[in-house]
């Protein structure tokens, strides 16, 4: 099967081509089925790949396939080639699996939309680009996928472009991402100048052999790449685009802005783990940014009333955890959380979409309430996913989050402060998620007559998807049960070949510093207990405030009004960016670049040249009389001039 990996990205691409050419004339159902089937086939191939990979011996789980040489210019060479190893297979499974479910959901959700076909074309294109990103065997191809998913994200955020707000949100996402991509691209340039190649295997091999821990170049590369991750994965300070990105259709939010694309930054760090391990200073930055983002976005999540906005901030916060995991060198824990998060967050978003479907596309939770009675399937799946994200023992989120928190405390890069930030953020997460559940599904429906009359459970295609994802949210963690529960953490073990170079570098570095590695299980139990207590506290508080004493939230927000206002307005970050960055740039481009440089200088020159060329064309054209005699004359003129010049002068 390994020789057929190219099938995985090929199927979605075929879907794009087919629906682009024929989709306009086909029925919705056919378009939807084609869109979903192609992803399903990719999923199937990915599963077969996983089985093949599991059969391979321990340290030979890395497989490369070069399709063809893509660019060869001087010493620079890039291939279209894929690297299949445990990391990329897991990503492929997450991407194709979650997209498959979401595609099926979309058939119901997008029913009747004018852009139904366009939606499926873009979604398939997204899956194609995302697969390129995770399967690439070199930085350039990865960058192509990276930009491709960015493009699809832009197209899908502004999917309903008739509304200017949506189009603006798309632009915002695109522009903010550009800052990140700029850093990423500089990182790739630096990699090429340093190593003379952009092939993953070569770069990581050369890095591990030729550079020692703490090398300045490695730190620079790691930080530049991290700028890219910050933009794509919506971390501080470039997270501002993600909440606005909720303007897109809900399946898009679920697939691109929760489960897959936004986690690309985490994947990239895990993929380049060798470079990060060689740059502990960069790792520290990564860990701090991740931990701060986790708690920062969680606090904003408490105050929002838009169901999708709450989930958006929750996503930012959860990716913060993954970044934190990478920052403390626990790459596989980060990937583990990436996977479980993909399940439960996709489930939550699709649940939110289902709710919106019932509420005539309203997203304000203040007019919801009591929906439990009307849409049981949505409620139960939403609740299961909430339990998972809150980290209730036994659910998938618990295992992955616990692993991250433990590592952030016990790893040689971790410390108490990172742990406490993560632990408190876990409590806040539990609080705002249960607030969401209680306000939306409990109590009495607060919507007006018109909306209330239409409240209904969603169609089968949607609820089936919800149940699948809810099921995964519950059991998805069992493949990575840590040693403390008697599990072998098979997930981490499976990923080991990808991170073995990093592990070797760390061991030798630690040997030098004489660092004690062993931490007892008793400490792990204690920390886990503390975190669980914090989580329970958050849930209890939510129960108290939104079920028992529903006047309490108003009271509290009035009591601490300045703080509440600050958080409610998202710390005024959008306003600050607008005043400090957007407006100055706008002014410069408006008065200097546009009205002077562009209009006067460039347009003047271009138009002038254009007129000149057209004038020349018209004049020269008159020579073409149509008479053979004239043609012969010009010919002879040429002969005479050439002979005179070449022979006689």
């Amino acid at each position: 099967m390994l020789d057929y990996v190219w099938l995985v990205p090929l199927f979605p691409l075929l879907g794009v081509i087919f629906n682009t050419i024929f989709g306009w004339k086909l029925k919705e159902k056919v378009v939807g089925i084609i869109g979903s089937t192609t992803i399903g086939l990719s999923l199937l191939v990915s599963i077969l790949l996983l089985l093949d990979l599991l059969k391979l011996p321990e340290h030979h789980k890395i497989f490369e396939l070069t399709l063809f040489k893509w660019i060869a210019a001087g010493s620079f060479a890039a291939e279209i080639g894929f690297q299949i190893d445990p990391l990329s297979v897991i990503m492929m499974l997450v991407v194709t699996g979650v997209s498959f479910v979401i595609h099926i959901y979309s058939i119901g959700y997008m029913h009747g939309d004018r852009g139904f076909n366009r939606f499926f074309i873009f979604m398939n294109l997204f899956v194609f680009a995302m697969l390129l990103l995770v399967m690439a065997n070199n930085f350039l191809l990865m960058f192509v996928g990276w930009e491709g998913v960015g493009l699809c994200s832009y197209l899908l955020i502004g999917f309903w472009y008739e509304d200017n707000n949506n189009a603006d949100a798309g632009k915002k996402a695109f522009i903010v991402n550009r800052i990140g991509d700029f850093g990423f691209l500089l990182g790739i340039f630096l990699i090429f100048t340093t190593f003379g190649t952009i092939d993953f295997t070569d770069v990581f091999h050369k890095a591990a052999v030729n550079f020692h821990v703490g090398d300045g170049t490695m730190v620079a590369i790691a930080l530049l790449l991290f700028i890219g991750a910050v933009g794509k994965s919506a971390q501080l300070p470039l997270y501002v685009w993600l909440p606005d990105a909720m303007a897109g259709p809900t399946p898009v939010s679920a697939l691109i802005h929760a489960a897959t694309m936004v986690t690309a930054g985490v994947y990239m760090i895990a993929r380049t783990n060798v470079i990060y391990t060689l740059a502990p200073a960069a790792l520290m930055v990564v860990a701090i940014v991740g931990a701060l983002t986790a708690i920062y976005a969680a606090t904003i999540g408490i105050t929002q009333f838009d169901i999708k906005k709450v989930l958006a901030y929750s996503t930012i916060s959860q990716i913060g955890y993954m970044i934190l995991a990478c920052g403390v060198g626990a790459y596989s824990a980060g990937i583990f959380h990436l996977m479980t998060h993909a399940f439960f967050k996709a489930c939550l978003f699709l649940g939110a979409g289902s709710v919106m479907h019932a509420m005539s596309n309203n997203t304000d939770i203040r007019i919801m309430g009591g929906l439990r009675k009307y849409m049981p399937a949505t409620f139960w799946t939403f609740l299961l996913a909430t339990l998972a994200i809150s980290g209730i023992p036994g659910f998938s989120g618990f295992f992955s989050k616990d692993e991250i928190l433990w590592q952030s405390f016990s790893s040689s890069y971790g410390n108490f402060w990172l742990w406490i930030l993560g632990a408190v953020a876990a409590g806040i997460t539990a609080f705002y998620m249960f607030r969401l559940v209680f306000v939306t599904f409990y109590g009495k429906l607060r919507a007006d007559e018109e909306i209330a009359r239409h409240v209904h459970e969603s169609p089968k295609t949607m609820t089936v998807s919800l149940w699948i994802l809810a099921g995964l949210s519950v059991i998805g963690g069992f493949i990575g049960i840590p040693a403390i529960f008697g599990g072998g953490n098979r997930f981490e073990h499976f990923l080991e070949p990808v991170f073995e170079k990093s592990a070797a570098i760390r061991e030798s570095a630690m040997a030098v510093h004489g660092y004690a590695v062993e931490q007892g299980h008793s400490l792990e139990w204690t920390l886990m207990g503390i975190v669980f207590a914090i989580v329970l506290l958050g849930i209890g508080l939510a129960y108290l405030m939104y079920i028992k004493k529903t006047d309490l939230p108003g009271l509290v927000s009035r009591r601490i009004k300045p703080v509440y206002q600050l958080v409610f307005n998202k710390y005024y970050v959008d306003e600050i960016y607008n005043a400090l960055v957007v407006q100055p740039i706008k002014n410069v481009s408006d008065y200097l670049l546009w009205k002077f440089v562009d209009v006067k200088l460039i347009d003047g020159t271009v138009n002038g040249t254009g007129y000149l060329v057209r004038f020349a064309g018209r004049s020269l054209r008159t020579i073409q009389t149509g008479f053979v005699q004239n043609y012969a004359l010009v010919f002879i003129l040429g002969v005479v001039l050439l002979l005179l010049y070449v022979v006689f002068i």
Partner: protein
Amino acid sequence: MDLSLPVIHIQSIYPQMILVLFAIIVVILPLFVHNLKRELLALISVVGLVLAYFSLINLWGQNLTGFNGMIVGDNFSIAFSIIFLVGAFLAVLLSLNTVENEYLNYSDFYSMLLFALVGLLMMVSSTNLLVIFIGLEILSISLYVLAGIRKMRVDSIEASLKYFLLGAFATGFLLYGIALLYGASGSIDLVEIGKYIQANGFSGTFILAGAAMLLIGLSFKAAFVPFHMWTPDVYQGAPTPVTAFMSAGVKGAALAVLLRFVWTIAPLSKADWTIAIWIIAFLTMTVGNVVAIAQSNVKRMLAYSSIAHAGYLLVGVLAGSQLGQASIMYYLLVYTMMNLGAFGVISYLGNSNKQENLNLRDYRGLGFKHPFAGLAMAIFMFSLAGVPPTGGFVGKFYLFNSAIQAGYLWLVIFGVMNSVISAYYYLRVVVNLYMHEPEKEVAVPKASLGLSFALLIAMVAVLQMGIMSSSYFEFFRQAVIAMP
């Protein structure tokens, strides 16, 4: 006395022989079988092309010399021959379209096309100036017939006559050049002449004048400025498939001979020669592009565009390196694909003799009404303009890269500026296809299977050569002539 028997190696002209055989079959068969459909004739021609292709592939790498040195079967000639075969193949497919149903006699058409191809193959597979000349004549006479094959049309006859008159004129110069070179060096073989020049220097009135006249004769065929005046009239008047075939094939053969000529006789080592070629390349690019802007007839516009492309190709000759040779071959293949494709779309949109829909205004809104043809045309236009990720971009990149490495920075700057100018008129077609409402109802007939197939091949090839250029380029790198 030592008598050496000439070495024949008959297999070195198998491709030509196969093509001649099929040309004769195509022309004789209708005498015996009545009411032959043109599709069948086209199929027979394609069979001939395929057989010729395989016999060419068979010769690859053997470096055969046949007929006592008159025929050279090196990779260089094979690579060019394959490009011509591809061009002829596409031209045969294009001829199956509705608008092309007005030739008086199809068997003539296919047979002349195959004979023209034989001429092309002869030209590139010899270093003997007389053989080259015979090839050129086989080619020219076939083309005179082909240009005028729509006998009831005045412009077709006019094209044929103009091409013939000026062609005869140019051939005179070519022959005179050969005579002068022979007179000075005592040989009609480029290699022998090259040896003479190495011994005696590239000087002397006879040698210089002979070389200049050879250059003039080839310049006429390749449509270099100022020997290009015939091009627009002939290209416009000839049937579209013929125009398409001429634009890529004849140009390619003239360039191949020019390459052999500058490599064996090495005039590039002489400064005023390089300056002369520099000026011709510059003029060709610029005049072609600038005048193309002023055209409203799409076919005529493509005629000027083909002049401009001849200029780009000449830049590769000037580079005087093996990189330049490979770049020319690469570009010629891309050009064959995209130009025949573009002419194919023109043929597709033509309705009948009276209504060919050649005006730019007829293209308005067609991109939505005929999505396949519209997309194909857009891709070919982008490729002709040299926009990535099409083959046109990569080809131009290789050509200009080879010229920069040879130190012709300014010529490349002018070339890139010319590309910018050309983008204006190429993209104008795309703008008309997609961004204007149609003015009037343009009736377009159903596309024939053959034409659709040709467009599909060309489209895929243009994109493939843009994205996976390396393998093609590597192939052509094996086909360059070694340093003399």
